[in-house]
């Protein structure tokens, strides 16, 4: 009977000792989003969004303005180095209205693996844009957004959809 007690105790200790966290392999491999963003992109769609109307639940929240002016002539090239790090950019507007102040310079992102903002810089001029869904990148669609704020509140946005050339 005494032996049985020791046996149960030993089993319990072995069981507890056996409980260790297991390491699982990652479900997918990491995707370098910033590398996918690199290339030459043609502007294919421009949507103007009244963010104030959206938050207030008003009708008339957004308008597709692509066809108002020749926006589709604009070409956006994002260049990277051999390691895939962002380097330079150029914007060739054609007859399109400008979408940012700059036409060339350097670019960077806030997080190479999961960027939410892209910063275009030339000298002291900096233009910041938001990066949209990554889902389109695989199929050659880059979505970026420009917000216009008043006292920190976004009132107006432009959503630009680019198609890879």
């Amino acid at each position, binding site marked *: 009977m005494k032996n049985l007690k020791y046996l149960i105790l030993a089993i319990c200790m072995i069981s507890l000792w056996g409980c260790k966290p297991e390491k699982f392999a990652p479900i997918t491999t990491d995707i370098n989003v910033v590398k996918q963003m690199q290339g030459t992109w043609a502007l294919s769609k421009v949507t*103007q*969004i*009244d963010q*104030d*109307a959206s*938050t*207030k*639940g*008003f*009708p*008339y929240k957004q*308008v597709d*303005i692509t066809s*108002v*002016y020749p926006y589709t002539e604009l070409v956006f090239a994002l260049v990277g180095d051999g390691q895939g790090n962002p380097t330079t950019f150029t914007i060739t507007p054609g007859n399109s*209205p400008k979408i940012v102040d700059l036409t060339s310079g350097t670019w960077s992102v806030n997080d190479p693996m999961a960027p939410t903002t892209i910063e275009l810089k030339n000298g002291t001029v900096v233009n910041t844009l938001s990066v949209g869904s990554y889902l389109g990148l695989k199929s050659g669609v880059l979505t970026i957004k420009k917000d*216009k*704020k*008043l*006292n920190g509140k976004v*009132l*107006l946005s432009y959503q630009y959809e680019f198609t890879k050339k």
Partner: protein
Amino acid sequence: MKKLLLSIICSLTAVFAFGQGKVTFSPASFTAEDEVTITLDITGTPLVGQTAIYVWAFSNDGVGGGKDATTNGQWGASSESAKMTLVSANIFQFKFVATTLFGQSPAELINFGFLAKTKDGSKQSQDFKPFKFDPLVFTPSQFRVFPAKFDYTDMATVYFHQDLATDINLQRMYNVKVNLTFYNEGGIAVGSKTAIVAKKESTVLYSYAFIPERVITIPAGTKLGKFTYQFTGSVKDANGQDVTTSGPVNEVVYTVFN
């Protein structure tokens, strides 16, 4: 017996009334985006005599989609940001903007309620609720601009909803055109363009979208402060001849984003 019954009823009524506390709002009516000041008189509530009381607020009582205020903290330890300001004995105030307090959009917020409590929750008032937010109503009109706020570098679209026109000539107007005039920040006209053909979006809706620099040549170094737009067109007179008619001149001030 009658007197006794009457006394009991009177006493109960007095206790009930006395135990209500009193809430006032400034402004008296408000939207979910307005800054509101609650003034609470805790006389007659279990909190009477307290010098430090805290708001415990909640949104959309009884209508679904409610949330606790972001300032509530824990029931046993209210957050300091929920502390009401002592104005005088038993009178407290609390300032808030509902969209910030509840972290919800104006479209989501229908009403709110609150109670007052001690920090540790050992004493509390009854619920004060529900207080409705004024709706942020969109009012349809015959002339409209999209978006609501934009600067002079932005695309703007002016609309004419002919079905909402009240003037008989505007109701009948066809060959619809737009006149635009742009003004600098000092209010001086710096350019205009007239008789721009409007886009017929439907049988009752006309529009014209533009960026100022594509319509006029903006003088170097000039910032635009506002523009005016006017829809014009033709109607038939009694002899079937075309006669020019026009709507009112509408002014739009540019927003300066920061």
